[in-house]
């Protein structure tokens, strides 16, 4: 006697589709992202682009602290490296549509960790679970703030990518149904820390959001000693990621202004300037 087919939503997703699910989701998202600048037929330059985006990209190639002061106002001092692609394409004589398509493509980097989180929230291998994961990824990007980044030179979404990666990596040991083992958990935590540091390096405004990361790292291990070690490892990773992403820029700011976070918290660095005899 033949077994009746289970209802569609209860059927298992074909193994091949499950294996390539994240790639398919990323490809679908890429298509959607690309459609925005292509349909607009331009790259929009907002207040910030006229004021500092292009200038910062320019200074990413060669800093101008020995020539300019407040060339783009107090925005001149933020980490400029994520603005380099838009500047390079502007200076290279690209059309706005092509530049917008490249920038939209770069944003695919944030889709993968969002899918990882969706898979963590909705595990399972039925058609229902698969559909729910796709909807979860779609709902993640269904925000006017997120979507307004496409077709413009804003890099806030790109700057948020490492933080979303950090969360997704920290959640890996938690989302796995089996015990991943302490070595694997350490690897996730270290990578998560690196991404956290990088996120803060590319945009200091990611810093306040990153306060919940130690809480996530705590959950990656079992037993108080291992949990503490996980937090320590994540913090070391964060420091390494921050130095990797911000070290050179911070050093330039220190050299020229005696404050690696210039113009923020300037009075905090006054004792340090006095102590090392920084002459300005």
């Amino acid at each position, binding site marked *: 006697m033949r077994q009746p087919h289970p209802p569609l939503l209860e059927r298992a997703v074909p193994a091949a589709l499950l294996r390539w699910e994240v790639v398919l989701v990323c490809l679908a998202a890429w298509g959607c992202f690309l459609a925005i600048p292509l349909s607009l037929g331009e790259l929009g330059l907002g*207040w910030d*682009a*006229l004021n500092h985006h292009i200038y910062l990209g320019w200074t990413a190639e060669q800093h101008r602290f020995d020539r300019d002061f407040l060339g783009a106002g107090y925005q001149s001092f933020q980490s400029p490296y994520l603005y380099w692609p838009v500047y390079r394409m*502007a200076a290279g004589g690209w059309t706005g549509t092509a530049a917008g398509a490249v920038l939209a493509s770069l944003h695919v980097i944030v889709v993968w960790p969002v899918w990882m989180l969706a898979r963590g929230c909705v595990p399972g291998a039925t058609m229902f679970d698969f559909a729910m994961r796709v909807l979860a990824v779609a709902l993640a990007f269904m925000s006017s703030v*997120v*979507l307004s980044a496409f077709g413009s030179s804003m890099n806030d979404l790109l700057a948020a990518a490492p933080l979303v990666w950090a969360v997704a990596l920290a959640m890996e040991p938690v989302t796995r149904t089996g015990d991943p083992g302490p070595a694997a958990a350490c690897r996730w935590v270290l990578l998560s820390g690196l991404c956290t540091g990088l996120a803060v390096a590319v945009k200091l405004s990611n810093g306040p959001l990153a306060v919940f990361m130690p809480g996530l790292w705590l959950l990656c291990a079992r037993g108080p000693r291992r949990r503490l070690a996980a937090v320590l490892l994540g913090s070391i990773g964060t420091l390494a990621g921050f130095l990797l992403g911000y070290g050179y820029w911070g050093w330039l700011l220190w050299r020229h202004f005696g404050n690696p976070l210039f113009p923020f918290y300037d009075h905090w660095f006054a004792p340090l300037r006095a102590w090392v005899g920084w002459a300005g």
Partner: protein
Amino acid sequence: MRFQPDNWLEALSRPVAMAAPDANVYVEIMAPDFRFIFVLALLVLVAAMSLAPRRRGAEAGDGTHRRAGARTVFILAAALATGFVPWLATTANGRYFLAGLLIVGPVCVGLAWLLPLTRAMRLALAVGMVALQAFVVQQSIPWRAWTMASWNEPPYFHVDVPPESRARPATYVTLSAISYSLLAPMFHPQSRWISLHNAPFPDRVTADGRRTADLLAKADPGSLTLLAPAVPGMLTPQRLPNAGVSGAIDQQLAPYQLALVPGACRFLASRGLADMGLGDKTPRERSQSGFWLCQLARRQGAAPGALPANRHDAVFKALEAQCPRLFPPGGDRDSQALPNGEVRTYLRAEMKAYVYDSGEVYYKYYRALNPVLVGKADDVLAGRSRLDCGKIRGRSGLPWEREI
């Protein structure tokens, strides 16, 4: 502090207020977001339904998957709630909360997945959330939300930069709130740039005042140049700054010991600037869109006709004492003289205070249409007129209560 809540009610209701179809709630553009309401509602539903007797076969996945999913969802929800606090406390700007705005999507669907309902119902719920959120996104039209100028064909922003400006370095000063520093790479790379809109007045006391003074002092006098967008309606037939706007520019340059060299301006046509602004421009308006490039000279002493400032310092000080968060003591720098009073700016709070010679004291928050009367200067000084710091027009209140 543009989007920071001013009181506990505003802070606690922010997840709900974010759904309001208004601009300037948690980001400059209109960006209604129902997903945080979904999370709150689904948390209540999950809690309520977990107490109700369970129906067989209506649970998410098998036991192992359900536990793993639930753990992830609740941890992420807790992380979101934790992240909300420093976000509200530091900027509350949605552009700096994009990680949270992304993570909330899987949390919403994960919570729906956990409900003890049939698969079809849970799927319908998730589709409904996506559809409703897609609808409000579509209604708010995020495309070109930030756009002031369009980059279509190269160059990315057209302006007729003179060949000599490309060939020879100079020191360029800008005065406008937008620095237009995107033009800087089109000029000689050894040129020097400073935005006087942001630069403190030159002095030997503060570090930044010294930096301003040094940059201006090092400039070759013949190469000091102003780059400013031409002001519509203030051009001569030759498209140069007329006497009125020249005087205003000189007033702004005076604290930096700079002045326009008479007759030493030129007009740089800019299609980039012509395309900016609301509505269609007439061919004449388009032809008058561009930048002024004006030679500057060093000046000693005040600008001719300069009005004395700091006559109303005591009134500003009294206002600052009343609401120091909105009027940080001292403002950004010295008060500026107006023909009939003085104005002091508070950039961090995006606030301006006006004291007129006739005695009225006004404030204006940047999102308000008009200045608001505080009272007479004597009353402010005597404490008889007080500003309600919790009722600032254009700022205070939930989005649906706000007045502009």
